């Protein structure tokens, strides 16, 4: 019994020593990696501040003004004045969409929806296929498509 206890504790000591040895090396490696990352972060920060300075330099009002003047023909940019304000009522919004009956679906049972379609055989001759005048569709921006 005692021998077993001794053997177990020695094994535990050896095991713990190995574990702490490994942990310490791992820690040092992590520290090195962290220092490396810190350095990289520092470099990125430097780069970022350089880019910010460049951005601010390229966006300086003098330059933007000159660019706006150079490209006046295409862009037509000019300083904002009080005349550029307008009432909400002056804006030409699209009229509210009308509720249209659902479009005719081919092969759908025609029993109830018969009134929604106009058969125009009389206009195009007796043998012309029936044509359905679909309700006008609205584009995404509300403009009415032809």
């Amino acid at each position: 019994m005692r021998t077993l206890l001794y053997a177990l504790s020695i094994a535990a000591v050896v095991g713990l020593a190995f574990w702490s040895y490994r942990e310490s090396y791992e820690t040092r490696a992590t520290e090195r990696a962290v220092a490396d990352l810190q350095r990289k972060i520092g470099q990125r920060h430097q780069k970022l501040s350089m880019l910010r300075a460049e951005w601010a330099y390229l966006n300086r009002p003098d330059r933007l003004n000159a660019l706006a003047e150079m490209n006046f023909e295409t862009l037509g940019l000019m300083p904002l004045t009080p005349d550029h304000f307008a009432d909400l009522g002056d804006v030409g919004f699209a009229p509210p969409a009308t509720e249209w009956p659902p479009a005719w679906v081919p092969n759908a049972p025609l029993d109830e929806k018969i009134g929604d379609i106009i058969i125009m055989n009389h206009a195009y001759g007796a043998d012309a296929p029936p044509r359905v005048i679909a309700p006008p569709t609205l584009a995404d921006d509300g403009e009415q498509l032809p």
Partner: protein
Amino acid sequence: MMRRRRKIVATDPFVPVAPTIPVAPAPKAVGPRPNPERLRARAEIRLKFTAACFVLGFAVIGAKMAGISASEAREPSTIGLAGASIVSDRADITDRSGRVLATNVDATALYAQPHKMVDPKAAAEGLARIFPDMDPEAWERRFTSGSKFYWLKGNISPEQQQAVHDLGEPGLLFGQRELRVYPNGPLAAHILGGARYGEQDVRAAEIKGIAGVEDVFDDYLADPAKEGAPLRLSIDLPTQTAVENVLDGGMRLMNAKGATAILMDIHTGEVRALASLPDFDPNSRPRPATEGDPGDSPLFNRAVQGVYELGSTFKIFASAQSLELGLTNAGTMINTAPGLRVNGHRIRDFHDYGDQLSVTDVIVKSSNRGTARLALDIGAARQQDFLRSLGFFEPTPIELTEAPGARPIIPDRWPEITTATVSYGHGLSASPLHLAAGYASLLNGGTRVSPTLLARDTAPDPGPRVVSERVSAESRHMLRQVVMRGTASLGEVPGYQVGGKTGTADKPKYNGGYWDDKTITTFASIFPAHDPKYVLVVTLDEPEVFAAGEDRRTAGWTAVPISSEIVRRVGPLLGLRPDFNPDTDGFGAYLTQVVAR
């Protein structure tokens, strides 16, 4: 000396020999043997104590290990301030929306260690080829003089650095540093000020502010504990640009030698734009002028340092105080007939305005005699107290290095003639910023405003009350009528109900007296007058313009058109919606605004 021992010869076997063997002393009497049980118990206690020590030691180590393995893995920080090493040395300065006004970029400095040089003569000649301003002979003398260190250039371009590399001289070395950059060039130059290098090292150099906010907030900007948090100013970059552009154009049109404009939030005192022309580029700040008038130097901040007699713009203070004290009301008729003499001095008017005018018309027509009578009625002591409460007796608290030195010039004695002249802005000199703060305090509803350059996220508590809200509204209504039918008729901007007062003051000569043909013209205005948001002060130095058939030097012809153009450009930029409703000019709108606030 050893003595030989006598040998004892045993002649007679029966002769007793002297006993030489010492006899051990008899052992002492021993008590009764201790109880072995007690001995065993004592030994057991000692063993247990030793074991407990070991157990405790291992337990401490074990607990620590358990603690380490159970705790959150965190990077060991050996630096006092986490991340302090990766932020740049000096914080940025931004406008109120975060647009960069000042930042740092990497730069390279060039220095020499002559004792490491292979060929000082060739090095000096090579440097002179790269940098034309360096004298080869002088530098050769220095390189061979035995000194061990020289700074050559504070900041060189990458091309120059490569050229120096190509010289192949081991005694020429490069130092790392940061360079303070103002990407917008001369924009807001007087606010930012400028920076220079302080302590220099080959690895880094300290940047120190020398003027403007760079100097005032030097400690804040250089504080590593802030971790590079930028300094946010109240300036608005587009507004500042528009103000500077319009002012620059206007200054040329009016042939003025200097101009300044201040746009300030009337309620919070945040300066939205502050321009002073001529200006300079803070990236290469010129040296202070050693000769000539320092007031003509581009470094001179006319808005803050320029202490001028601001002329008739002061009249509204006299009328407002008179109203506040209940001496008059807006319709009280004031005697403006010629012949008013105070202490033997005649008070003159620009035109003859008839025998009497109402208080409103005294302001609208800008009658010196009218305001002099109002002020004489108020009295010197009360007049001084009122101007003091508006901040005209101390330097402005704005966060610029130049501000504490710009003390208004107050007359030593205050006889009746001073009371009269100060009421129309002569005899007391103050900076345009003082005027802006005074107008803001009087017209925002009547609470004191102190100008600031720092952006405020929350509105500050209103300052001490200067005049009642009613008087403030009446004063605004008077100023509005100055623009609608008075001396500032060119100041009308459709949509933004501008109200303001013109001021034209003759420039004093250095040796006393006044110039006949040199004026300082000022237009102090608020917009929109019925519900004021901003106060704008425009001052021109020696303007002269040929208009409507004659040379004009009055504010109405010079400062007012510039001011109206500034309002027209800046109003939309500030997000102010123009209001074309004519009802807003009725006095009722001025009073309801007071009630609504």
